[in-house]
């Protein structure tokens, strides 16, 4: 196979934003997630938990509540006081309706998805109707002093429970009046003279209200009588989030200390009628505040300020013991944030509001397998390019020669020309950038740095020619169905899962696709012949190895070896793989990760055991991996410890002996 010199890059200072709120859509098995920087992501649970859509954030946007309504429509509300509907096809906020109540703290949709209730800073609860094409203000319910921090509809849609500071209110939706007011700051430990903030609330169909407050208590109230049925103290810090299952027999609570607890409604005596809420399972998956939890029929999902999304399937709901029952933690985004300029040996890092250009270091020593070589020249931070405006950057790329940088935000596209003069570097904006249908979802530079391909809205691809002294010219726009000029070659047969990475081999013109569903992980499609290649068919026939199918993270980048057409480099978060198409495929009984065993075998034995998947798990967690030339690889890692060092302050946990 060969030896590679690996440039191990760990200076990409990516710190993902924390998870602020989540909303689950049962019908489509999708989870919408909003982060503290205003970004909204949609995960498809049916397709191996792949993040299929990502709406980039905004400097002034803060999303405090998300909900799905009227089927597939996603609404968000935040501290700017607007209700925003997100256009999931075009990946941007479609419109915003002012709530006129100040910052909106909470939003909830009723069971049918026809009405939205918002809780505002001034203490009012407002009702909006979801109509096709927008939301319409319906009426104002009773207003009382104190910000409404959480809202919950009764499943029948007749009453609303609103949690505030020191009290909970139950409102009658039809008349708009307060039917019940419950004070929650009784039974407070004497040492704490703070106010009791009700962080989240749930209304069950039996008339029980469950509230979680800032003293770390989960309390069960009878709303008609206004009495406390049960109270559990789960933590010394605040209990920030609460979610109820659809059958209403299990709830999950998230706390500030990073712990989540499950409560279940269990009969007091086996087979008896009387039931009680009992704290059953504690989990400590997070290190920081758990601000959002969701209870799906088979799993508990929690998202915290440590930027992790944790999905914990419940063992009793899992039908058979398979890879579905495993705990999943997602920290790094499922998108490519690094571009590599192969010839110039530059890396472009995409942050949310700026780009960084680095030159890789070099060494002039050689060594054996596994040795760390000393650097003769350190990696250099060449350029930091701040994005103009409050919007976050959606995608970026650098040309292979390193002289063009392009990036796109939701409303603007920028192209820059970079001049390298010895050790100095200067950058100039390219004027006259063509008017494109924005936003641009993907940017790709041709390997000869002559053209830039921009994939944007409504399936159109713009081809822009990059001219030498620093200009650009719009060549064509490809739109489906495509018109004459550049002929449309063929259509790849569609598959039900999302594509995570795709690349075209420069020499053979084969399209290599990786899907999010690891079940049928890889496809190779020959563009000239307009059909799947023979290799691809043999892979599908023999099936992929069991361990390959059980990978957690999607493949985000595919690269090719320009000298050897049968070698393909793939990577996901935990492994790097060089696929050699000329070698046989492994069957299920063979060892998949066999590089270390192969090294110890003799030549003939090695030939017998060699197979196509050469996997390296040395570099983890990987953000990006690429082939610079025949002997050189570059890997960009982001160790979890480095992310942890940049996180906000967590709650101190007293451990014995410290």
């Amino acid at each position, binding site marked *: 196979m060969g030896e590679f010199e690996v440039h191990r890059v760990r200076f990409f200072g990516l710190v993902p934003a924390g998870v602020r709120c989540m909303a689950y859509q049962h019908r489509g098995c999708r989870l919408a997630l909003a982060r503290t920087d205003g970004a909204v992501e949609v995960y498809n649970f049916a397709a191996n938990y792949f993040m299929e859509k990502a709406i980039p954030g905004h400097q002034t946007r*803060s999303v405090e509540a998300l909900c799905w309504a009227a089927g597939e429509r996603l609404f968000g509300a935040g*501290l*700017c*006081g607007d209700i925003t509907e997100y256009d999931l096809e075009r990946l941007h906020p479609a419109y915003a309706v002012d709530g006129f109540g*100040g*910052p909106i*703290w909470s939003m909830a949709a009723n069971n049918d998805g026809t009405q939205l209730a918002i809780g505002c*800073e001034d203490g009012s609860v407002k009702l909006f109707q979801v109509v096709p094409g927008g939301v319409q203000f319906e009426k104002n319910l009773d207003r009382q002093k104190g*910000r409404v921090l959480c809202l919950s509809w009764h499943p029948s849609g007749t009453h609303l429970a609103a949690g505030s500071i020191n009290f909970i209110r139950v409102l009658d939706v039809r008349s708009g009046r307060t039917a019940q007011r419950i004070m929650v700051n009784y039974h407070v430990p004497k040492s*704490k003279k*703070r106010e009791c*903030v009700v962080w989240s609330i749930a209304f069950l169909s039996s008339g029980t209200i469950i509230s979680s407050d*800032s003293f770390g208590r989960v309390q069960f109230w009878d709303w008609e009588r206004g009495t406390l049925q049960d109270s559990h103290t789960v933590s*010394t*810090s*605040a209990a920030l989030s609460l979610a109820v299952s659809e059958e209403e027999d299990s709830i999950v609570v998230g706390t*500030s200390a990073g712990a989540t607890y499950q409560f279940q409604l269990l009969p007091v005596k086996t087979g008896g009628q009387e039931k009680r809420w009992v704290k059953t399972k504690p989990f400590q998956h997070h*290190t920081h*505040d758990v601000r959002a939890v969701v209870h799906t029929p088979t799993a508990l999902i929690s998202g915290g300020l440590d930027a992790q999304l944790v999905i914990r399937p419940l063992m009793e709901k899992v039908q058979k013991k398979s890879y579905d029952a495993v705990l999943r933690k997602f920290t790094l985004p499922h998108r490519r944030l690094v571009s590599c300029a192969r010839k110039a040996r530059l890396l472009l890092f995409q942050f949310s509001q700026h780009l960084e250009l680095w030159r890789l270091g070099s060494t002039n020593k050689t060594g054996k397998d596994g040795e760390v070589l000393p650097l003769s020249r350190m990696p250099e931070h060449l350029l930091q390019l701040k994005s103009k405006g409050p919007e976050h950057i959606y995608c970026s790329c650098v040309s292979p020669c390193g002289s063009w940088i392009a990036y796109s935000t939701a409303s603007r596209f920028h192209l820059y020309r970079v001049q390298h003069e010895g050790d100095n570097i200067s950058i100039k904006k390219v004027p006259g950038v063509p008017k494109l249908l924005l936003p641009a979802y993907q940017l790709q530079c041709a390997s000869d740095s002559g053209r830039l391909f921009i994939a944007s809205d409504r399936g159109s691809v713009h081809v822009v020619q990059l001219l030498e002294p620093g200009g650009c010219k719009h060549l064509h726009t490809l739109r489906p169905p495509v018109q004459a000029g550049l002929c449309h070659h063929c259509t790849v047969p569609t598959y039900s899962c999302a594509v995570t990475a795709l690349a075209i081999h420069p020499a053979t013109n084969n399209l290599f696709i990786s899907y999010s569903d690891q079940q049928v992980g890889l496809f190779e499609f020959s563009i000239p012949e307009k059909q799947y290649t023979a290799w691809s068919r043999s892979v599908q026939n023999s099936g992929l190895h069991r361990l390959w199918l059980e990978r957690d993270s999607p493949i985000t980048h595919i690269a090719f070896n320009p000298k050897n057409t049968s070698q393909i480099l793939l990577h996901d978060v935990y492994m790097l793989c060089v696929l050699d198409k000329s070698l046989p495929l492994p069957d299920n009984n063979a060892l998949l990760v066999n590089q270390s065993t192969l090294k110890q075998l003799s030549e003939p034995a090695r030939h017998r055991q060699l197979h196509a998947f050469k996997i390296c798990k040395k570099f983890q967690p990987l953000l990006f991996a690429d082939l610079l030339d025949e002997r050189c690889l570059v890997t960009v890692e982001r160790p979890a*410890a480095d992310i*942890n*060092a*940049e*996180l*906000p*302050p*967590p*709650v*101190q*946990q007293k*451990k014995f*002996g*410290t």
Partner: protein
Amino acid sequence: RRRRQELFTEQKRRKLLPEALLQELAAAPLARAEEPSPAPAPDKRPERGSAKQRKDRIPGQVKKDKAGGTRSKGNYIAVHLKDGNLTGLHQQTAKDFIRDQLYGPGTNRTSANEFFSTANKKDPIKKAAVQFVDKSWGLEKKQRAAKFTKSWVARKMTSTL
């Protein structure tokens, strides 16, 4: 009352305008602005160039109260912004509330460094503390040491001379 008004506008103007501008407008406009003018005098404000900070002044009241003589060359922009200060204030109050509730006094918070360092030390496999070398540690000691060295060297010099 008029004299008080004058005093206030004078103080405000002095506080707001940079020296250079004042010198430029020294001749005629200065004499004019000293006149008692009961209307508020925000006329100089757009010329500060940071109209953003004066959003709550209703721009309609800006009066062009100059002699028309000296006019500072155009390195300013007068911008009429959407009246966004009230929502900004509400948002800021809301953010302060969240910050106080989560990170304010009474919440038992520690830095990420300490948290993960204790976790590393209590692990079955002990590891080093996160950010072992923090430049801000022992700053005082380092400063005192530097001062002592200086004074010691000075003493040595005086004793040898």
